[in-house]
């Protein structure tokens, strides 16, 4: 098997460079043009949804809407919306998934 340590070091260095990219030059971008600010505001919803939706609709690597993760996720979204509470969302989401998997 390919040795893992060189991969860890290079993947880690690249990931740090991405994290540092704009923070490293932040002192030169104190005033952001309104157009850019408008764009930056869309990053959280866009990026988070891009992580969440595939996990709910294609858990096995192909589109599948008739499986428990989508239903459990929808239920958890409702709880997240009503309570904004991570604990409640996790318990309801995980509980629903385990329950649905055993039906």
């Amino acid at each position, binding site marked *: 098997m390919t040795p893992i340590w060189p991969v860890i070091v290079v993947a880690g260095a690249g990931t740090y460079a991405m*994290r540092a990219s704009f*923070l490293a030059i932040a002192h030169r971008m104190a*005033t952001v043009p309104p157009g850019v600010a408008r764009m930056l505001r869309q*990053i959280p919803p866009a990026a988070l949804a891009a992580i969440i939706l595939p996990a709910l609709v294609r858990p096995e690597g192909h589109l599948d809407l008739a499986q428990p993760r989508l239903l459990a996720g929808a239920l958890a979204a409702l709880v997240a919306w009503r309570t904004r509470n991570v604990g409640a969302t996790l318990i309801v989401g995980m509980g629903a998934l385990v329950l649905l998997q055993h039906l």
Partner: protein
Amino acid sequence: MPSLTEARAGASAAAPMLLGVIPFGLVAGAAPVSHGFSGWSAVGLSTLVFAGASQLAIVDVLSHGGSAVVAILAAWTINLRMVLYSASLAPYLGHESTRRRLGAAYLLVDQVYALSITRWAGDERADRRLSFYAGAGLLLWTTWVTSTIVGTLLGSALADALPLDFAVPLVFLVLLVPVLVDRPAVVAAVCGGVAAVVAAEAGAGPLSTIVGAVAGIAGGTLVDARRPQSLDQ
């Protein structure tokens, strides 16, 4: 000026997130070990890469006989969104020293980003922003590394018992809901999610997350630009 109160507020805000971080960290520790890598390599992944999904991708690629280059590219692609987070946070931290900003960059993960950007948007006190960020980030980092170590000891027995990977989208759901405050944000989320799924179906693999994010940003920005100026205030 570092503020202990604000650091504590950051840690408190991050505390409920631990319910999602701990199971994910256990998996990040168990996965390398159950695929024949050493426990130390799991700890190396959690400290040097410090990004769960990409850590699992590296183990997945290497354990299926993939090359180092493919594993590295998979990890980088999954973590590309960090560039977006970095760009989004930078305007708030321009007054901090380069050393502090580079230190903060190490702690940049989804949860710290989402918590900080929400907090800072409603707080005029620029001097204490980094304290909140560090409080949240250090708590998450410590928990992540600790649960990774416990995961290496528990091994694969754990991964088989519960669908722990499902904790990841659930935690992100809780981060997503509070940012859906207006039409552009909803459009950004819908475009981002749908584009990510379409890209994944088209075979984009780990790239699909960043494709979705870019599509979502474009959609949200377009809708935002069309709104009457008065609504921006």
